[in-house]
């Protein structure tokens, strides 16, 4: 397997590197995407699908955010951010040309190479589609190496569907099954209404030869794992991306501890059977 990309400046993992915002797109009422470019003379930014960066808003603070762009395009670093609190709301106000500090890439990756040859089921909820998008780009760029590709996505309402145009584009491919559901909708919506777990039976994958990757809030992931187990997908075939508060992102401070693991270093992507016991412990 290809080794994971090292952090952009391995000698100084705690020092943010300045990146300039080249483009911002408002995806949803509370969610936006920034395209970043390194300042002149910097090396391209390589990363593996599922890895994250620490993004630093000067004078406000630093937050872990997954990379949502195309791993084959190391010239543009893309992040999709939901504005929920002090730092992410300040970032939402940043305009083209502004500078953001970046440390990374950090953490483990979706096992896109290890699962070649099997069916792949990707299940995302809400902004959880963003950390899975690089895996989708990778698989589509190497489509012949995989079996069935199933992308299942749940959002609160039709207005909350992230990357809608891309979901429609992927859905129009003959080699990809895409299904989207919302919790509620009004008459104009012609798609599914119901929880994302209801979609799992529809993908037509082979449970004994399927790799599942799930990203969303923990409650959503818990129910999704149950539904996959009910369909015969075992826990060693399931990967999840975990979130914990972070400070250093390099395994020093212990802020992101999750049982015996550090989410920043051992995660954020974990094979589910390896964290199953901790995952089910409340308040961990």
């Amino acid at each position, binding site marked *: 397997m290809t080794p994971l990309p090292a952090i952009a400046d391995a000698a100084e993992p705690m020092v943010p590197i300045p990146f300039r915002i080249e483009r911002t797109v408002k995806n949803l009422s509370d969610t936006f995407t920034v395209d970043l470019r390194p300042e002149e003379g910097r090396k391209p930014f390589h990363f593996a699908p599922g890895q994250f960066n620490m993004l630093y808003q000067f004078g406000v603070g630093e937050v872990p955010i997954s990379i949502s762009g195309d791993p084959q395009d190391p010239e543009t670093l893309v992040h999709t951010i939901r504005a*929920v609190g002090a730092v992410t709301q300040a970032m939402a106000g940043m305009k083209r040309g502004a500078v953001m500090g970046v440390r990374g890439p950090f953490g483990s990756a979706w096992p896109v190479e290890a699962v070649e040859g099997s069916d792949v089921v990707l299940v995302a*909820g*809400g902004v*959880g589609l963003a950390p899975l998008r690089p895996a989708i780009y990778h698989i589509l760029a190497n489509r012949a190496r995989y079996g069935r590709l199933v992308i299942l996505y*749940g*959002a*609160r309402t039709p207005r*909350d569907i992230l990357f809608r145009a891309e979901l429609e584009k992927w859905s129009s491919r003959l080699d990809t099954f895409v299904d989207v559901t919302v*919790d*509620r*909708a*009004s*008459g*104009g*919506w*012609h*798609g*599914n*209404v*119901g*929880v*994302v*777990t*209801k979609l799992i039976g*529809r993908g037509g994958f082979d449970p004994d030869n399927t790799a599942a990757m799930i990203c*969303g*809030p923990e*409650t*959503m992931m818990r*129910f999704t794992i149950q539904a996959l187990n009910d369909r015969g997908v075992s826990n060693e075939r399931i990967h999840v991306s975990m979130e914990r508060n972070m400070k250093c992102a390099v395994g020093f401070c212990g802020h992101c501890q999750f049982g015996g693991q550090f989410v920043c270093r051992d995660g954020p992507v974990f094979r589910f059977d390896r964290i199953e016991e901790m995952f089910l412990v409340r308040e961990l």
Partner: protein
Amino acid sequence: MVHIEGLERVLQEHAFFAGMDDGYRDLVAGCAANEVFHAGTYVYREGDPADKFYLIRHGQVALEVYVPGKSPIIVETLKSDDLMGWSWLVPPFRASFDARALELSRLVSIDAACLRGKMDQDSSLGYELHKRFAPIVAARLAAARRQLIDLYGHPEE
């Protein structure tokens, strides 16, 4: 539009009947009819007598709540292999939602009075059908509760 054809085979292919004894399935088939609904037409409306339940073969049907002066709120959509309607099992046998075809949908309807009559005569058939309905009702209730909690955003709010 209602058609009656060799429905035993159609029922055999539907998930609801998976593993059911042939004899029971044939008894149900005796109460069944094929129905086709065009996009936008109603299968039934809230408050209608629940005199049938449906198995969806193809298409998509929305369960909706009518809101005066506004678009209806869709609470769930059902697709092929889903079962629709259990008000026929529970007095006062009235539909709780509007059911509207979102696209051309082919359904099998089962006549409730016919089937209730057979279930009253043969309690083992009644038990078999209740055993198949209970997990569906339970799964739908669990799913409906999950829909309430904003599973994809801030479940704590």
